[in-house]
């Protein structure tokens, strides 16, 4: 029962992530990537199987859970944060350079004028 529910959750997170990644503006794409990384982390974690009250601390329980996927996921969580930060900053940079937050990089010259930097070279 738990297995089915968790599998469905992982599928749901991936699907929602994909749907948002397919949007045309940057912010939803970043939201989608974050949702997807939740799904991926849970997926990796689930590879070690689900065990309750069996932390991988030597001496705590007789049959501890699998520590290896946990170690992988721990760094993956931190790296996912760094990548989210990188992507969102890239999105900010694109908005500053192009004048909008479209993912395909459409440039709006009028926006340059409003920001009073028409002299600057386009990025």
């Amino acid at each position: 029962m738990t297995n089915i529910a968790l599998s469905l959750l992982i599928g749901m997170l991936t699907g929602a992530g994909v749907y948002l990644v397919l949007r045309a503006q940057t912010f939803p794409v970043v939201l989608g990537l974050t949702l997807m990384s939740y799904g991926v982390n849970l997926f990796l974690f689930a590879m070690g199987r689900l065990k309750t009250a069996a932390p991988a601390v030597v001496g705590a329980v007789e049959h501890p859970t699998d520590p290896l996927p946990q170690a992988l996921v721990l760094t993956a969580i931190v790296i996912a944060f760094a990548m989210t930060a990188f992507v969102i900053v890239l999105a900010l940079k694109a908005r500053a350079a192009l004048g909008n937050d479209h993912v395909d990089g459409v440039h709006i010259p009028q926006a340059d004028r409003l920001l009073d930097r028409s002299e600057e070279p386009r990025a």
Partner: protein
Amino acid sequence: MQAIELLAIVVLLPFLAAPFAAWGARFNRFAAAWVAGGATLAALALFAALVYAYGDVMPVATSHAWIESAGLSFGFRLDGLSMMFAGLILVIGLLIVIYARYYLSPSDSMGRFFAYLLMFMGAMLGVVLAENLINLVIFWELTSLASFLLISYWQHRKEARYGARLALAITGAGGLALLGGVLILGHIVGSYELSDVLAAGDLIKNHDLYAPALILILLGVFTKSAQFPFHFWLPNAMAAPTPVSAYLHSATMVKAGIFLLARFFPALAGTDLWVGIVSTAGLITFLLGAYTALFRHDLKGLLAYSTISHLGLITLLFGFGTPLAAVAGIFHILNHATFKASLFMVAGIVDHETGTRDMRRLGGLIKFMPHTAALGIIAAMAMAGVPLFNGFLSKEMFFTESMRVAGSMGPVWLLPILVSLGGLLSVAYSLRFVHDTFFGKLDGDLPKTPHEPPGMMKRPVDLLVILSLAVGILPALVIGPLLHVAVTGVLQGEPPYYKLALWHGFNLPLLMSAVALGGGVVLYLLRRPVFRWHGRSLAHLDARVPYNRLMELLMRSGAGATALIDNGRLGRLVIVTLGFALGAGLLGYLLPQTLAPVRNAIEHASAADSGDWVTVFAIALIVLATLVTTVWHRQRLFALITMSVVGLGVAMLFARFSAPDLAMTQLSVEVVTMILLLLALFYLPQQSRALSSPARRWRDAGIATALGAGIAAFTYAIISRPFESISGYFLEQSVPGGGGHNVVNVILVDFRGYDTFGEITVLALAGLGIFAMLKGLSLPASRRDPFGRPWSDDPHPLLLRTFTQILLPLTLLFGIYVFLRGHNQPGGGFIAGLIVASALIAQYMANGIETAERKLRLPIHGILGAGLLIALGTGLTSMVFGVPFLTSAFTHLDLPVIGDIEIASAIAFDLGVFLVVVGSTMLILLNLGRLTDHAVDHPDYTAIESSHTDAGTRREADA
């Protein structure tokens, strides 16, 4: 260490000297030439000493393990063949260095030239001295790369760039084929060492894979040595400076292919397949090159085709497959190197002193430069095979061998006639080279008034020409011993009996020589009608045309294939990638042999899986939050908040399923992620505009649902079947090997410490990258929320300020506690770093960035750098103690009051992790926060932005 190990120094010396040549030229342009000359001389001296010491015991080889699993070792070999080639490369290299010193004009970069030349020399030495075949292929590729740089030396010239690309494409492709051939060879023999391969000739020739191995290796040989049908890159390589042509196309680059024929002669030669392919390619190349050379007007063009022709001659000799033919081949390699290098240098002198290489404009130069003319005439006579010059001797041997094997190759008269015809053509073009340049009428308006070049430019040619004469007159004395040793090296055994002499009596080969000489003179005298006929019939044939067409086709189809996947829109790329994943998954699922186990797992699992209704209910809540986030994602702030619910739910799941470390990490990452996205949202529109049509939204929803369902099924199929973990080792070794009870942490900082080191480096780079991207950025920011309400004006609420003040020491203390217990209890550097970073960030949020900076004075870049250095230092310290990078050590300390504590070196590494996490998180968030100072507020901005993108998207939808 044995002295023979120094062979590696001979090969590496030019590579090591190359940067110095480039660097030295910044102070004095001739310093580059001195460095190049000095390095070549030193390598030559060392090599001579080695030959002197080991000459009697050749072949000798050294070998050091490199990547043993791939059969790759780093080894060099000294035998007759490698000795001869290495000697040629170094001696002619030295002469070329001297010549180039005077040839290059002040506007040419000497440093770049000599650095490339040295790299090329080192690569060539590597090819001829290699003991390991994979090693040989690596150096072979390096010669292709270095020659690319040399041919394109005059980068501003279009033909130089084209010629270099052509040479790289052809020889590079050949190099790949060679690699394939060598791998097969190694597979057959079971070793990549040359000594083993050369001793296994019979095994190789009788193996089923002999034919593919031979063909692949020959592809490498033919492309490198410009054999038909790959010959056409060589004339285009003439766009290089003349010293380069003289070096690459007389003694080195193109001879690498021939070298390989000689090298593999004992292992591969003598079969029908070998004779058929090698001699056919050689014969066609010999005739085609000689014929085309006659009609070139450019001096270097003529020499290029004559080089092709002579390479064909040598290939043909090796193609005969007999030991005596190999003797003749080796002899001709030496002779060709001397006279062809001289001729290229003479052509360079003529070009240098008159400004043109066009034989239709040149003429009568003997009056202006008698010395150079004498050199040119002698070298050309050697090329034509006139008696008393070295070319004559090897050509006689060539004719003799052709007579000997003629019976086995077609009608007995065919081969002698064809090779005589080739000889006749070479006499004609040699005569043309001499007569059209040095005799006849001079075109009045040459770009420069011709005169003799500087003396030192002629010295290298003098030397080679004298050598050519000496060999021609007294062959047994001058070249006999060297030839003997070299041939022994080729055959890996005592050479057959042969006689080196000028006079062999009246015989058929002599008659063939006479016919060639006489016929060649006649052909030259009749050149006008012959040229006219050629111009009408064959002149338009150009092997480059099909090549160019092929390249164009490749480029076009490449661009087409790319456009199919990537049309510049993110949506297309995502759909193609995910669609492929979905297709692959579906295919795997639908295949009958995979379907059954999956079904089986699903059916069996549900029985074993106990129902835990609390967890299922929690999961249902997270599913709901995900759904809400997705459906209402256009209200960005709202979506962000519901998404944080998902994140917290995931953290709870980690806690529920025995992963306290993950739960703590997820929780603290959730905090910083939300701060990050909230900050970013401040500079972005508060609402997403509806850019996609409903149809497109439904399509995307369909794709997303299919993928989500696939992933869910996939996950379920895996987690419901039994498995055996590899983690037993980690659980057992954690305490005795890593000195910690928290296995997750021990894996991170000890077992897989190297991975973690890579990961914190990525983290640091992401932080620095963001810092760089945000520098000087100004962004539009709205002062109102989506519903028109102004943001709160109170920047730093008193309540927040007070609370964070109280919380700061507590949180820091908690962070340190989590860090210290990490090795034995859930916690560690990652989690502690995130906790401390969020505590600090709270200070900045409550007090404002400037105030907080004044109060805290945190050197954030310093923290980041210190973290990386500490982690690296921990790793290196273990190396000081002679154990591999990042090996940990631990000990127990019995301190008064505190009692027994365990100190592991891994805690220092974890400290590095901690500092990097704190540093990069702060770097990212603070720099994003700082942008508020440059934010531009403009009410019209959003209006323009939305109107424009909507229009843009509609256009896109129409298209």
